């Protein structure tokens, strides 16, 4: 289906486009209406369709409704798209020196984002052949309980030969962790980035 106008076929067995198609024969005829859904960038995403196995006379109002709803869906799809992009941008691993990288986490860590970050970190850290990854928490605004699963990353990374170090733990996060009885004895925390760097053997001279 091409074009921006809805395709309307009251009777599949009569319409020039569809009467000889295998799918029409298999289906035994019927009716079809389809309004194209476009993305904001002008690319076609797909179609909002209606169909029946009986012929149906679509009136002007029906066609208009399909067209309007298809346009509305453009915005919804765009929202999904933007959210995915934000997820992808939300965990930037910054390589510092051979084998050492920093991951500054900012914003709100929801369960979904926490999951995404965990998967991404393991993949990236392995790809970059890291020995140490410093995860800075000071930019985090709000966390769900699930955030603390991020700390389980430490074990997964250990298996890959990577040491995870946390910096920038804030008092409110610390309180939450203790309240939730998180086991933290296997996780290395440092007060600031400088201390973490010096732990891995990097000295900053000013």
């Amino acid at each position, binding site marked *: *289906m091409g074009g921006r106008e809805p*395709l309307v*076929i009251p009777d599949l067995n009569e319409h020039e*486009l*569809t009467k000889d*198609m*295998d*799918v029409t024969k298999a289906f035994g005829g019927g*009716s*079809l*209406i*389809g309004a194209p*859904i476009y993305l904001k960038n002008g690319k*076609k*995403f*797909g*179609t*909002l*369709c*209606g*169909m*029946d*196995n009986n012929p*149906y006379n*679509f009136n002007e*109002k*029906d066609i208009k*409704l*399909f067209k309007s*709803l298809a346009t*509305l*869906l453009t915005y*919804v*799809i765009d*929202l*999904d*798209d933007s*959210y*995915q992009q934000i997820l992808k941008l939300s965990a930037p691993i910054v390589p510092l020196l051979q084998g050492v990288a920093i991951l500054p986490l900012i914003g709100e860590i929801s369960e979904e984002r926490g999951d995404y970050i965990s998967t991404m970190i393991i993949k990236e850290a392995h790809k970059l052949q890291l020995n140490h990854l410093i995860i800075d928490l000071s930019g985090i605004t709000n966390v769900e309980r699930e955030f603390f699963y991020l700390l389980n990353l430490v074990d997964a990374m250990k298996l890959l030969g990577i040491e995870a170090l946390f910096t920038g733990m804030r008092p409110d996060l610390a309180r939450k962790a203790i309240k939730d009885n998180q086991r933290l004895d296997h996780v290395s925390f440092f007060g600031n980035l400088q201390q973490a760097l010096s732990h891995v053997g990097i000295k900053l001279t000013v």
Partner: protein
Amino acid sequence: MDMIDHKSLNEASEAVFQLLKDSIGINTFFIAKNDGITVDILSVENRNKILLEKGFQIDFQDSY
């Protein structure tokens, strides 16, 4: 095919199908994603008869 999660679209489609069902007397409403190669049925609403199911995938060439 890219792995974009259509969470909002899935939620919105329920309302869209309801509106269509209340206004137009045909059996099936659906949203199809079409990348020029395959057609993916992302969500479906059947009134009485199951004419189409979610997850159905066909070649672009064989589809309408």
